[in-house]
């Protein structure tokens, strides 16, 4: 007997049908993961179950049975008892999902008053217990605090406490950890798992992250373009995915084994929700297409042991191993580094008081030293707020460093005037994180790409030349030359990121600083961009400074890795040294926190707490409040560099 049974659910927004006949069931106490890329309709499904759809959307068909009753047939007042009481829900953005002007306690008590007989002091006591239960330290004080006073991880815990207040039998978690850092994600996932086991609560987990699925789910449903295409127990799904789409999702994941090779990509893009389909929805992007696929939608087919797939293909699709290349590109390593950063600092003053005196500084970057050789990739890794993006921009002199030196090919960049810097700017460029904010919506693609060439005067006059160069650049990044006349809004996220890369390449730089270039993209698109970047590196001998929090991407493409914590590099060395033989406890914990697709758990203890504020870093080693190994010495002074071999440098007293 299932607690939730969704049958043939369809949701329509205008002409679009983001959810088109979804059926699945969840047993009591089970964790069912709905996996899919952005726009596949997974969040819309969750909102449809809760009947919280936006005004423009409506359920056009199907039923949602919860504990035997059809939710879609309930009157609104009856549905309100289910919401919060029967089914709890938590959302992706803890920062905006809590009411900013009500205290944490008020927001929990509100739910208690609705779904339990507790009132007044008793309700408050229960709220404190709930905060305790979700692992919030010092719950009495937190009850009277406002959401903005809490960190992202704590806010998500409060969201969970609010959901638990109604003692729901089913919890819907919509991308609950996507907005969180990897170490915090690990904490929250552990908490959800523990609560589920304790309370016997079923969990509908909505995610795009295969690692999270492997960590949490009992069963998995894969969604594509508004439909489920595969449903399987976790073990089976990860050992033998049955739908060609699932297979390709795995193959697109970057990791160390695929280093130097190309990732499998899924050609094309997800069909629009307004499209009408004759046959299989994946047909345009599938490598195993048969005539039958185009004629009619594929029926469900049992594979074995509870695994079902919606595909005409008999048996399992061939696994798509990434084409593994020759391993490390054996470049002759030049002795002289292209980029040399020494002791760079970026401090932002904090002003207070009547006269706005400077009373302190946010030490966003606090003494970073790095080296990057031509044609190599250095990954700058760290959690949000560690200063990695600021460091990247400071190297480009987009933010002027407060102290330290930045040498590009032996030329000092700091202390130079804007006009002196201009000729040097052609040698280093940047690719930004958000492909939707990095292209001016009012300019044509051609003008966007030409801007750098004109500003830096890298080409001879003559309009024909420019157009030809733009065309060549567009082809180089895998777009068509005739796209130069279009505006950015016509392009998808992946295509925009290609345009951004073309813009940077237009001035023939030697160094490209890539700031989280794939974090806004789906896995399959990320693979395309990573492939493009490695092709360009091989072709143009580009050096990359790759700023990211995604360890898998680092493992796939970085030659050297530097790990940042609170404005400083705590460990750096070759990729193998840092990722396989991590010496710093922070690096070890960071690596351990990444949910692995093979479902293996790491032995390293999880990190507790949050990263402190860079305005007020802890004395001694910045990491000591969270470090399991810390002792008196760590509290007193910041560790000096310890070298392990020629390249591996660690700043930790305890590193051995």
């Amino acid at each position, binding site marked *: 007997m299932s607690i939730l049974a969704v049958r043939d659910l369809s949701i329509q927004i205008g002409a679009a049908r983001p959810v088109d006949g979804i059926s699945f069931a969840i047993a009591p106490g089970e964790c069912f993961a709905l996996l899919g890329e952005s726009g596949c309709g997974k969040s819309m499904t969750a909102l449809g179950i*809760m009947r*919280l759809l936006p*005004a423009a959307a409506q359920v056009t068909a199907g039923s949602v049975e919860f504990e035997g009753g059809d939710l879609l047939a309930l009157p609104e*007042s009856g549905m*309100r*008892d*289910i*919401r*919060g*009481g029967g089914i*709890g*829900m938590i*959302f992706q*953005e803890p920062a*905006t*999902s*809590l*009411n*900013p*002007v*009500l205290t944490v306690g008020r927001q929990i008590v*509100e*739910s208690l008053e*609705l*779904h339990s007989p507790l009132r007044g002091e008793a309700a408050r006591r229960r709220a404190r217990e709930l905060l305790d239960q979700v692992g919030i330290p010092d719950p009495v004080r937190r009850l009277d605090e*406002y959401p*903005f*006073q809490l960190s992202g991880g704590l806010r998500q815990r409060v*969201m969970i406490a*609010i*959901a638990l207040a*109604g003692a729901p039998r089913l919890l819907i978690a919509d991308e609950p950890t996507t907005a969180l850092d990897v170490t915090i994600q690990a904490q929250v996932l552990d908490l959800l798992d523990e609560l589920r086991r304790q309370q016997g609560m079923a969990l509908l987990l909505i995610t795009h992250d295969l690692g999270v699925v492997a960590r949490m789910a009992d069963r998995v449903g894969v969604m594509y373009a508004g439909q489920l295409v595969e449903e399987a127990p976790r073990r089976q799904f990860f050992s033998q995915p049955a739908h060609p789409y699932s297979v390709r999702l795995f193959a697109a994941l970057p990791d160390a084994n695929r280093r130097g090779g190309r990732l499998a990509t899924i050609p094309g893009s997800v069909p629009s929700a307004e499209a009408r389909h004759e046959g299989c929805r994946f047909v345009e992007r599938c490598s195993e297409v048969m005539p039958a696929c185009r004629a009619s939608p594929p029926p469900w087919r049992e594979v074995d042991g509870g695994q079902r797939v919606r595909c005409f293909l008999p048996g399992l699709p061939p696994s798509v191993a990434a084409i593994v290349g020759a391993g490390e590109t054996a470049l002759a390593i030049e002795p002289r580094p292209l980029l040399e950063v020494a002791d760079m600092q970026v401090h932002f003053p904090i002003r*207070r*008081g*009547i*006269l*706005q005196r400077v009373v302190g500084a946010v030490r966003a970057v606090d003494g970073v030293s790095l080296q990057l050789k031509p044609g190599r990739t250095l990954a700058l890794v760290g959690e949000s707020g560690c200063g990695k993006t600021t460091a990247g921009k400071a190297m480009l002199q987009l933010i002027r460093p407060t102290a330290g030196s930045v040498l590009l090919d032996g030329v000092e960049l700091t202390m130079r005037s804007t006009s002196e810097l201009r000729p040097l700017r052609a040698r280093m460029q940047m690719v930004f994180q958000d492909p939707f904010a990095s292209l001016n919506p009012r300019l044509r693609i051609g003008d966007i790409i030409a801007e750098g060439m004109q500003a830096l005067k890298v080409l001879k006059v003559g309009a024909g030349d420019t157009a030809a160069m733009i065309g060549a650049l567009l082809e180089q990044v895998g777009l068509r030359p005739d796209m130069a006349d279009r505006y950015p809004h016509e392009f998808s996220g992946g295509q925009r990121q290609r345009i951004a890369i073309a813009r940077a390449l237009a001035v023939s730089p030697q160094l490209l600083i890539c700031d989280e270039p794939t974090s806004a993209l789906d896995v399959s698109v990320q693979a395309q961009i990573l492939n493009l970047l490695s092709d360009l590196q091989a072709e143009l001998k580009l050096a990359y400074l790759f700023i990211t929090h995604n360890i898998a991407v680092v493992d796939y493409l970085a030659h050297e890795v530097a790990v940042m914590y609170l404005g400083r590099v705590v460990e750096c060395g070759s990729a193998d040294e840092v990722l396989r033989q991590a010496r710093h406890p922070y690096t070890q914990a960071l690596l351990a926190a990444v949910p692995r697709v093979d479902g293996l758990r790491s032995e390293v203890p999880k990190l507790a707490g949050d990263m402190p504020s860079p305005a007020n870093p802890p004395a001694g080693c910045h990491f000591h409040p969270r470090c399991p190994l810390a002792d008196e010495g760590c509290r007193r002074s910041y560790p000096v560099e310890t070298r392990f071999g020629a390249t591996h440098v660690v700043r930790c007293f305890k590193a051995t």
Partner: protein
Amino acid sequence: MLAYIIRRLLYAIPILIGVNLLTFALFFVVNTPDDMARMQLGIKRVTPEAIQKWKAERGYDKPLVWNAAAAGSATLTETIFFSKSVRMFAGDFGRADDGRDIAREIAQRMGPSLAIALPTFVLGLFVAISFALLLVFFRATTLDFAGVVLCVAMMSISGLFYIIGGQWLVSKVWHLVPISGYSGGLDAAKFLVLPVIIGVIGGIGSSARWYRTIFLEEIGRDYVRTARAKGLSERVVLFRHVLRNALIPILTGVVVVIPTLFMGSLLTESFFGVPGLGSYTIDAINAQDFAVVRSMVFIGSVLYIVGLLATDVSYTLADPRVRLQ
């Protein structure tokens, strides 16, 4: 917090000085006192003596900013700039053309002005917010649409018509209240009812529509979805969650006008014959009494700056994110 208020107060000083310099330039540099005298006296009576007399009566017979004839500090103080502009900081506004002390006149006229402006403000705020909440509660229905159309239609009518129409209907046709006039004490009520009601009705259209937009913006936020996912009813969501958050922008937009309520309303007071600051200003403008207009400009900007300060303070009171940082 205290440091913040002090800093804002200090910031107000250069602004007041700026206002002062601006009005000085407007009133004495763009046109010389001689020009003003010539215009006020009329073409027929302009003789050098008449101009001198006119200037002497008003204290405009000094040099503008530098009195070379005087000695010591008097080179600066025996000037028009000092006696007419700088002394306003000390609350000395000089005398009006009819010879009365402007400061005393202002103090007397604040009461009647406030007696109309304050009830209009409070009642108007209440009515507009209630109306906006009603529209939001029935959002995307015919009622909401009709309400918005009504708002747009109401804000397309000039305030003059509300007053003229109201006076005509209520006082002339129905004979409910006197058409205009004012008296002190409780008697004032019968003179105040109509201007207050007209003021409220005239303001509803634009403010209710603005509040509705703010409410709708809040309703689209994530925390509202969370509140609904708790199982709260739409009414509780609206009143406990949305209203609290929407009040922050509403209050801060509204607080700035509270101090300027003292200035009264030009139109209402002049139509209803209320002896407040609004009618004082209008009379001064019509009589081209520059001293009074200059004083009102100065007082108006002082009150506006107080309003800005009050806005900042109210912001910190209404929003915990500001208060606790």
